[in-house]
């Protein structure tokens, strides 16, 4: 076994052409994913968080080449995913599976659960009919469902049960790596916890590696070993989950965390309300992409793309945070508290008023 992480993503780039006019000329590019790098060790989970349009879903799909990346490299178990073709690619894909957000849209309504689960085995020409039957049943039972489900159709199941079927479909090929793209977002609160527990149990039991994509920060913290925060096609901060949640350093991460409503008054942070909306990824701002919404933005932020600063594995792309970390003598918690205070002060000064 190599010591290399199972998944290595290096400066991954996925741009979509924007075509206009009669001749469908390319007039620009949507920079959905623009230079994203991370690694995931075996049996570990990387949480990928960010708001809609930040590129987290595109990043997940680009790794599996469900969307073709336009640049960068993806290595899976030492193999170059982007250079692999034909039968080799199919063999690689057997080991990398995905669970989609919408359990209503991702299961073919005309197929029985048996046909849905068996399809992957047929495509990959795995096993005899008898062996396939056994594997289908095993995958289904691993997700807490029984053989009674096999002859039924997706519409006969609730959202939570459908998501179990979608997970069983991913498991039937006995993969090493799962991309979980918002797997619980479409489910009711009381069902979410059931599916989260199932995913954790499967990871421990089958030795799986996860890329867990979600906008739900509490669930990401619960599920993940490491967490990366995306904004407008880039990762702005990446750290061990405990470090990131204890001492967020990027102003966007700070604002994101402070915006999550909580039932626990003690947990409520001073809310930092960002002004404005996320800009379009086809015309990303110059310099730091967060600068037009950032209460701490300085002139350097408008011009220079902030380089990565690493503080014992806690990586952040921000000029101001880098300076505060230095000022705090490398104490991330101190720098985080300081940045948070600066943001709250700056945000209350610039809150737009309707009296103007």
């Amino acid at each position, binding site marked *: 076994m190599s010591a290399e992480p199972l998944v290595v993503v290096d400066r991954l780039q996925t741009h979509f052409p924007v075509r206009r006019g009669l001749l469908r000329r390319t007039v620009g590019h949507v920079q959905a994913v623009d230079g994203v790098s991370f690694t995931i060790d075996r049996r570990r989970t990387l949480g990928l968080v960010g708001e809609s349009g930040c590129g987290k879903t595109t990043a997940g799909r680009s790794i599996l080449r469900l969307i073709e990346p336009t640049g960068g490299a993806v290595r899976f178990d030492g193999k170059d995913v982007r250079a692999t073709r034909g039968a080799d690619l199919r063999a690689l894909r057997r080991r990398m599976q995905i669970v989609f957000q919408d359990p209503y849209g991702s299961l073919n309504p005309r197929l029985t659960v048996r046909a849905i689960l068996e399809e992957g085995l047929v495509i990959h020409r795995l096993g005899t009919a008898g062996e396939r039957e056994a594997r289908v049943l095993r995958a289904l039972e691993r997700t807490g469902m029984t053989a009674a489900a096999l002859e039924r159709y997706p519409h006969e199941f609730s959202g939570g049960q459908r998501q179990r079927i979608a997970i069983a479909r991913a498991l039937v090929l006995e993969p090493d790596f799962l991309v979980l793209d918002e797997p619980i977002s479409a489910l*009711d609160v009381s069902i979410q916890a*059931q599916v989260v527990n199932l995913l954790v149990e499967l990871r421990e039991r089958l030795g799986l590696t996860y890329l867990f994509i979600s906008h739900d920060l509490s669930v990401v913290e619960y599920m993940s070993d490491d967490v990366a925060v995306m904004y407008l096609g880039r990762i702005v901060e990446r750290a061990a989950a405990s470090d990131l949640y204890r001492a967020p350093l990027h102003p966007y991460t700070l604002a994101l965390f402070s915006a999550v409503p909580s039932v626990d008054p003690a947990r409520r942070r001073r809310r930092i*309300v960002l002004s404005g909306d996320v800009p379009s990824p086809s015309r990303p701002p110059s310099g730091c992409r967060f600068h037009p919404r950032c209460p701490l933005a300085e002139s350097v932020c408008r011009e220079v793309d902030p380089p990565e600063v690493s503080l014992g594995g806690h990586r952040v792309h921000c000029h101001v945070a880098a300076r505060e970390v230095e000022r705090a003598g490398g104490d991330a918690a101190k720098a985080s508290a300081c940045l948070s205070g600066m943001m709250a002060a700056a945000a209350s000064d610039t809150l737009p008023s309707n009296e103007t």
Partner: protein
Amino acid sequence: MPLLAIHNLVTAFHTPAGRVPAVDGVSLAIDRGRTLGLVGESGCGKSVTAMSILRLVAAPGTIESGTILLDQPGGAVDLVSLPEPALRKVRGGRIGMIFQEPMTSLNPVFTIGDQIAEAVRLHRDVTREAARARALEMLKLVRLADPGQRLDEYPHQLSGGMRQRVMIAMALACEPDLVIADEPTTALDVTIQAQILELLSDLRRRLGTAILLITHDLGVVAETCDDVAVMYAGRIVEQAPATELFAHPLHPYTIGLLAARPAAGGRQPGPLATIPGMVPPPQHFPEGCRFHPRCGYARLPECAAGPPALRELRPGHFVRCDFAADLGPPHAVATGLGAA
């Protein structure tokens, strides 16, 4: 009397499969200037309750019984029996409405300004110019950037957060006493949600508008509401002031909902607490307490026998559970999940 008092509301849908009581005996009261959060999972009847208030429940749904009293200067009126012309004055006039999906609830072929002005002219005898001026004033009130320019733009030119601001502007244009907000931030990102919630609380403080906030997000309720009612399977199972409810949840369903979310700050060991089974669809509501098949504290046969009454266990804190005062230790629940 409270601004709005719902008493024993029953709204049912008559489908080929039979009568489906989506709202089954709901009573609620909202005082002036207060925010009441109505929480529950999909299918619990919270949106049907909201739609019933304005009699917007579409066929085959009908309000079968109950009263919805709206306090007015000329005396209270019952919205259930109010004639349609008078009701039209209430909709968008005394009571404003904000829906979840601002893209589908705004008309794509009219400008923002025209749509707000239309709402104003429906309820007030004003000129076109005055209505347009009012629309501009409202866009400023909800802090939309470049209000003068936005007035002549179409909904597709705005982002989700901006559209929701327009919806709020429209709902508030006629200075309603009550705004019904049905999942107003569910379709929005969390930083935009923070903006909208901040805006709603600010407007409530300044205008004194009462808000009925319908949501599935307990965190949103905790941060914005004065009072909370928790719905499950067509009934209110618990009701209390927000601080009281979150500090001392008494109904097993509320306790389960609060425990099912991972606690922040330090990774908790072991699996998350879960509510077993799934939300029952209205055509298959269980007998007795509707939560008993999923309840870890259920005592049989009592809980399956008759529906429990809503009782006040602590001051202002009402619970629909006969054993809430002394739940005892939870036991395992066999729900037959997956046997389906």
